[in-house]
């Protein structure tokens, strides 16, 4: 069982166990000793479901990475390919099969497609003449992966791009399927709210899929009261802004992948007492980040400026705890102290790690570049001079700052101005292409299509109205003891979360006008529950809402939702789901046509 998944209101371990059970069943189907050949991309997400120990229990003796050429030697009866349904991977598999020495060591071949089978891929294997070599071809439906007790992600990187650039709704289909799986385990969700075109499509698909399985009624008592589906393009602004929570900053600076972060090793070198640190490690330090780590759970969602104080406080508590050994007089007391030692040592190690990380982050947040960048972001968010060419952006381009930084800023200006004036638009595009290369026309075009960097249309700029009505800018945001979600960006309340907040109380009817200014329809659907399953709400019992971000969500937004859950009188607890955990940089990168050329 994964400890960090059981903390929340909804036990996401159920989902994880269901996924593990399916995996076990498939492995047992390929009876005998086995070796798994991995599509590298899958190892991360799979790691969240099953560790090697589970695989070993089912006779997995070796694991290899999928690559062209011959398969490595292994004395196993079965070879199983764990792959995404991608054509280029089929070609590699075919190569592996063809170069097998069938006479010498006959092995059985199987494929597990994740998350779905693909006819196109099987066709390809057929064309390559190897389809018949496989005994078991199955699909492993891994849609929503639990990342923490209140967080699910599909890690579907191209979802936003597919939906808004390519008009490809495959990701929405997978989302709907994922939600059906969720309902099968946690009960039908009685109320569905949504805002956005994609939200509408997902809801429609869910309702249709339910009708198709009309025979079987779901008898599970519903865990979720409400599902809220939100299109990313309803709030294009938030992911562009630099996140200011501890976890958000770690992601912005170092990148969190599958719940892990890789950090520069120097600060984490083990220093033995009295010895100078000799050989510094060259491998980056890899740390797991989730709520099972007590200290991390406490500080992850804080505004970074409040982290220092929290760490100091913790340091004192830990020191005091270690000092307790002086007070332990009786054998019983000593025994108790010793039993606490592992926990205290873990706490101390955790404190050391996060102190180091906080120092690394602080170096960045106290830099002039960070400050200048943040200032411009906040100017745009408060509507200051969004209709002119911005000098800081101009200078940054002239200095050849990283292209993605530039794209984030100009997109932000465009979003806050509801599109740029022709002169400004042309100027930025020209400067960018002249400085970074003409091939970036493709990226600029993609950004335009996604609505991030576009021309001003005839319609007026509604952003100031939206900002005022929804109170998106809170001047004196309290970073230390926040009373509003705007603390996550030190003043800016994420639009997406404000909408979520208002939905719970007083309801969307109070912001009809503003909702109309945001793209896509908004709607409400109800799903019938079998008789007797309607929940009788106890006095003071919280309702549970699953908020699904279609197109991606940032850690700062997640922090904001957790804040709402913790608020005294909210009466609501939130579980977050998304197609992808992202930040401004990874988001823009997914819209570039030539990611490797993005730095210069």
């Amino acid at each position: 069982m994964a400890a960090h998944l059981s903390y929340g209101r909804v036990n996401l371990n159920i989902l994880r166990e269901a996924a593990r059970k399916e995996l076990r069943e498939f492995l047992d189907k390929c009876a005998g000793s086995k070796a798994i050949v991995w599509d590298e991309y899958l190892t991360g997400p799979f790691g969240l479901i099953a560790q090697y120990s589970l695989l070993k229990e089912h006779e997995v003796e070796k694991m290899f990475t999928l690559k062209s050429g011959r398969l490595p030697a292994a004395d196993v009866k079965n070879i199983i390919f764990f792959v995404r349904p991608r054509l280029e991977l089929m070609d590699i598999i075919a190569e592996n099969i063809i170069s097998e020495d069938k006479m010498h060591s006959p092995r059985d071949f199987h494929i597990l497609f994740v998350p779905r089978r693909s006819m196109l891929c099987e066709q390809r294997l057929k064309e390559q003449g190897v389809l018949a070599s496989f005994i078991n071809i199955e699909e492993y439906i891994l849609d929503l992966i639990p990342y923490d007790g209140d967080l699910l992600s599909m890690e579907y990187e191209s979802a936003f791009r597919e939906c808004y650039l390519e008009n490809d709704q495959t990701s929405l289909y997978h989302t709907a399927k994922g939600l059906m799986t969720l309902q099968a385990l946690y009960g039908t969700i009685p109320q569905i709210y949504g805002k956005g075109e994609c939200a509408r499509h997902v809801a429609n698909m869910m309702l249709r899929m339910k009708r198709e399985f009309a025979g079987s009624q779901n008898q599970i008592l519903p865990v979720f009261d409400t599902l809220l589906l939100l299109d990313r393009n309803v709030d294009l602004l938030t992911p562009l802004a630099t996140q200011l929570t501890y976890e958000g900053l770690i992601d912005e600076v170092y990148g969190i992948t599958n719940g892990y972060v890789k950090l520069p090793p120097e600060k984490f070198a083990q220093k033995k007492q009295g010895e100078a640190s000799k050989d510094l490690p060259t491998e980056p330090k890899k740390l797991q980040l989730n709520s099972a780590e007590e200290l991390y759970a406490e500080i992850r969602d804080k505004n970074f400026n409040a982290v220092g104080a929290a760490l100091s406080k913790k340091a004192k508590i830990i020191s005091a705890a270690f000092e307790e050994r002086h007070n332990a007089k009786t054998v019983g007391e000593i025994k108790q102290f010793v039993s606490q030692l592992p926990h205290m040592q873990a706490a101390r190690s955790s404190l050391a790690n996060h102190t180091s990380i906080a120092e690394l982050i602080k170096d960045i947040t106290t830099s002039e570049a960070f400050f200048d960048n943040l200032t411009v972001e906040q100017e745009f968010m408060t509507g200051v001079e969004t209709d002119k060419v911005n000098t800081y952006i101009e200078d940054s381009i002239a200095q050849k700052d990283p292209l993605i930084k530039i794209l984030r800023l100009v997109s932000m200006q465009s979003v806050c101005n509801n599109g740029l004036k022709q002169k400004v638009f042309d100027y930025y595009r020209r400067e960018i292409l002249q400085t970074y290369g003409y091939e970036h026309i493709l990226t600029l075009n993609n950004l335009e299509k996604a609505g991030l960097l576009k021309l001003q249309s005839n319609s007026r700029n509604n952003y100031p109205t939206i900002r005022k009505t929804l109170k998106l800018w809170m001047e004196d945001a309290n970073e230390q003891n926040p009373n509003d979600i705007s603390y996550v960006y030190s003043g800016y309340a994420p639009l997406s979360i404000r909408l979520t907040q208002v939905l719970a109380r007083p309801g969307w009817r109070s912001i009809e006008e503003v909702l109309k200014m945001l793209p896509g329809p908004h709607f409400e659907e109800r799903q019938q529950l079998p008789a007797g399953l309607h929940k009788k709400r106890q006095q003071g019992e919280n309702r549970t809402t699953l908020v699904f971000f279609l197109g991606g969500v940032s850690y700062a937004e997640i922090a904001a939702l957790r804040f709402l859950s913790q608020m005294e009188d909210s009466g609501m607890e939130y579980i977050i789901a998304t197609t992808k955990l992202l930040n401004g940089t990874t988001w823009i990168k997914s819209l570039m046509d030539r990611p490797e050329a993005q730095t210069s």
Partner: protein
Amino acid sequence: MQHGKAVSLEKFRSLQDKLLLLDFSVSANDGNVITAVLIYLKRTLSKEVLFRELQALGRTEDEALLKYKEHLSIADENKRRDFLKSCLSLPFSPEDLALVQDHYTLLERQIIIEATDRQAERGGKLPTKTMPILNMSLITTLYYCCFYHYSEAKNTFSSPLNVRQTFKISEKQFFVTALAARAELKEWLDVDALFTCRNWLGFTKKKSPLSFQRVVDVLQKNSAPTQVLQDYVALVDDAELRITLAQKHKCHDIVINTYRDLKDRQQLLGYRGKVETGSAEERRIDELLTNQQIRWKN
């Protein structure tokens, strides 16, 4: 088909039926169903008809860009140049067309400059270069020209002024690039010339499209000597900023002069400790401090 059952599509015979089938499968959003239908269509429709129908669904500007994108996979520069030229007849929007035109013109020029310069290098006329400019951005190319061909006449391909004119580079961008290039070569006279302009009275005046603070930044990054930095720090309008910069770059005279102008005795006294004992600056400070004529404000 969505439920995994095998279905025969043969009964969809007419073109209209097939298109309806395609519409329907697309709206079902199941990739596998769409694939199956497409395979059937591919088998039963002639290539022309199929492409015609598919193209009608697409948008021409997108296609133009998709085609343009292919240039990235062409390694040989001459072939790439020719490809870009062929792209000019694609249905781009007018703005995009102008940019693709620039791209083509730039690559064409880069090829010529590379060829000429390689030859000059072999003949010993140019120092051996480390920076090939093929496929580099326009600004990088301009930098190269400012570096190796700065004083060339306006009518050569590698003249910075010619590049500026052909590609309509903004004054600011040109200025920053030329400044950086000449500074890297430590050609301080050239740097100075960038700022000087004669007005109609015949007087020279220092003018800059870039804030002098940024100018100092660029110069300092290229290890400009203090005397050079001093000249430009002195041109910063804002006194506070000027002092900060001057202190940062140890332009003592400027600090001293500014404190004198601000009549700030305390600060001047404080700064005395920061200059070298026995230096000319120290003596200057002492002179000023004992000067009875100055009405100090503190």
